């Protein structure tokens, strides 16, 4: 039974990948590019040591983002506000870390905690609005994303926190080396893998344990499967909503840290602000399961990194975003189709098995 289930859960992403590749091929033909050159060029570059290192780094970021979203998705709570939560978390982390002169472990720990705190706080606003005023978290988290950008702009441009860094870019003061987490270059000598990569693995494992081996995780999954049954079983729905959103926001707060602590050391206005949406896509792809999310994050990062080559072939690198968008919509449909088929087929096979049992009695 279980092998079958695993097989079933791979069908949908496989279909998604296939259709997306096919559609991309069509687009490539339409713009007059050569399919074989494009795909082989992506593959060749993508499997080079440097690209793989960059890919792991990006995948770390995507993994954390998708994890944050998944915690909510598992109970049908849509935290679309990861963008706002992580930029505020990264800003807070940058400010805190740049003011610390502690040994690395202490500094990084405090930095992480501040990022989680701010992320959770920002998500908490949406949680309170939902629980106290019945506001849909989909809309409120999106509004909070925009508000977060405004707040950051204000802080960096109009307060002393933002200073002129090099190249006329405003940002926070640089984090001292003791607060950075630069990482180890174990695949390509010139490209370190973020230190946060290893922390993310730990977080992923912790997420799995939390969800599948603790009482809280059971309550969360039960709420996602049937809110009414969960309530009857003793789960307090308001409490669940708040705790889950806070957790989701806390993890979201970390999304900017691999890049912040492993590379730039300062939060500037150029800090990427759309990693949250990517997380949503990957969470949908990975079906809110840490392993699926990890694979999805790697796939996404591969597409992003290897498509950087495409400009040499005259193809906009954004073709990867179309592929990604298509994968999401096809996969989401396929999952639903597979799920319905699974439920039906299990009903039939159970009925058959029972008939056999009765016959042999």
């Amino acid at each position, binding site marked *: 039974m279980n092998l079958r289930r695993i097989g079933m859960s791979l069908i949908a992403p496989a279909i998604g990948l296939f259709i997306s590749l096919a559609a991309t091929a069509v687009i490539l033909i339409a713009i007059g590019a050569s399919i074989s050159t494009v795909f082989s060029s992506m593959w060749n570059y993508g499997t080079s040591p440097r690209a793989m290192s960059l890919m792991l780094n990006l995948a770390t970021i995507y993994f954390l983002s998708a994890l944050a979203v998944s915690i909510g998705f598992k109970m049908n709570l849509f935290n679309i506000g990861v963008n706002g939560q992580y930029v505020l978390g990264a800003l807070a982390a940058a400010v805190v870390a740049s003011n610390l002169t502690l040994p690395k472990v202490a500094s990084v720990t405090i930095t992480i905690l501040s990022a989680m705190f701010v992320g959770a706080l920002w998500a908490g606003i949406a949680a309170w*609005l939902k629980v106290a005023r019945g506001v849909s978290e989909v809309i409120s988290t999106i509004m909070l994303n925009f508000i977060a950008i*405004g707040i950051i702009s204000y802080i960096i441009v109009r307060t002393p926190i933002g200073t002129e860094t090099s190249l006329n870019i405003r940002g926070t003061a640089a984090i001292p080396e003791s607060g950075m987490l630069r990482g180890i270059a174990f695949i390509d000598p010139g490209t370190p893998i973020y230190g946060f990569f290893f922390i993310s693995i730990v977080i992923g494992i912790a997420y799995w344990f939390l969800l599948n081996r603790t009482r809280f995780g059971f309550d969360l999954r039960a709420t996602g499967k049937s809110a009414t049954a969960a309530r009857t079983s003793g789960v307090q729905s308001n409490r669940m909503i708040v705790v889950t959103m806070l957790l989701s926001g806390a993890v979201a707060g970390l999304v900017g840290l691999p890049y912040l602590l492993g590379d730039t050391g300062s939060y500037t206005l150029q800090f990427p602000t759309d990693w949250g949406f990517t997380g949503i896509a990957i969470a949908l792809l990975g079906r809110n399961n840490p392993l699926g999310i990890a694979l999805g994050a790697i796939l996404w990062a591969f597409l992003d990194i290897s498509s950087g080559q495409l400009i040499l072939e005259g193809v906009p690198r*954004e073709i990867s975003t*179309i592929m990604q968008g298509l994968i*999401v*919509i096809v996969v*989401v449909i396929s999952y*639903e189709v597979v799920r*319905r088929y699974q439920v039906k087929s299990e009903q039939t096979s159970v009925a058959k098995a029972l008939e056999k049992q009765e016959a042999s009695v």
Partner: protein
Amino acid sequence: MTYLKSRRFIGAAFTAITMLSITRTITGNGDLTSTVTIAQALVFASPIALAGLAGIWAERAGVINIGLEGMMILGTFGAGWAGWQWGVWAGVLAGVIFGAIGGLLLAVAAVTFGVDQIIAGTAINLLALGLTKFLAILLFTDAPGGGQAQSPPIKGEIPTFTIDSIVGPLTTLHERGIFFISDLAGILAGLFYNLSLLTIITFLLFVMTSYLLWKTAFGLRLRSAGENPWAADSLGVKVVQFKYAAVVFSGMLAGLGGAYLSIASTIYRNGNTAGRGFIGLATMIFGDWRPGGTAAGALMFGYIDTLRLIDTGNQNVKGLILLGAIILFAIGGIMLRRARRNSAIGFLILGSVMIGAYFSATSFPPEVAQVAPYITTLLVLATASQNLRPPAADGVPYRKGDHH
């Protein structure tokens, strides 16, 4: 038309004008109710109103349309792409068609395949974002006047109308500064100044929606799909067809809203929608899933958008804050009368904070204006979300014969 005469509308309009008037008098800022401001507010309100209307069509048929933002984005792109090549009306048409395609995609995913509607909508938003970014680079980079993230200017303009005989005298009356009368004059003048044909179309779409959905058999059946699709099916109503029609039309309206945006800014630009699809959903909730309230909400947002954009002396934001404070106090008062102490206290505190802000600062950083629409959305939803009556089967995936 009967709605316009109804007590609710008159009461709401009266209250709104009074509050605006008070704010204008205290701040001395005539811009708050001037002809130009109001005219511009209509322009900004229309795309949001269209998004809200799109939301009504979909949700009245029982399908939550979170993908409105994506459909709007598709609309902005369609208008930019067709508009710069073939003129403004081609742009409108393309915007509508692109939006419809988005709607069709949502219908297929959510209605036929039963994907969770919020997930399907989110997926469409992601797809629309990626698709338009890619196509923009592909199609606009080398076009004359275009760039990697924007289209060349759209050719031609939508006709606008100004009725000088009304606008002139009323504007003069506005400049007199008489409490309430002048503000009313300014507002009325604004309605007939540079009135775009697209705005008129938007208004007509609202009227048409009211009529179609509540006065015809078609509308009854569509709404039944959102109230109790199993009952409707048992009476021979083709529920799936209605859901499809509603969602595709929803996409068309959102696409039209997007087209309006591009045309008003004369180009397509990445990120031009800036969350307006979602703000549209908020106006729909605020309007209790009815066209009248939705339009009111959209007008409010359009107004806020306008104030911040034509804020030459940074004064408009101050005015907004004062107005916001007044509104919060008013809502707090209503809550007190309804004996909802906790909510009342919350609103009164917020109102006081805003009054404090108003009096303490001479000017506000532009970021405040930038986030004003989003904070307003949150406030609006926080007040309005409870005690509402969405369609009973809204968001429920429908499968034939699924009921017992």
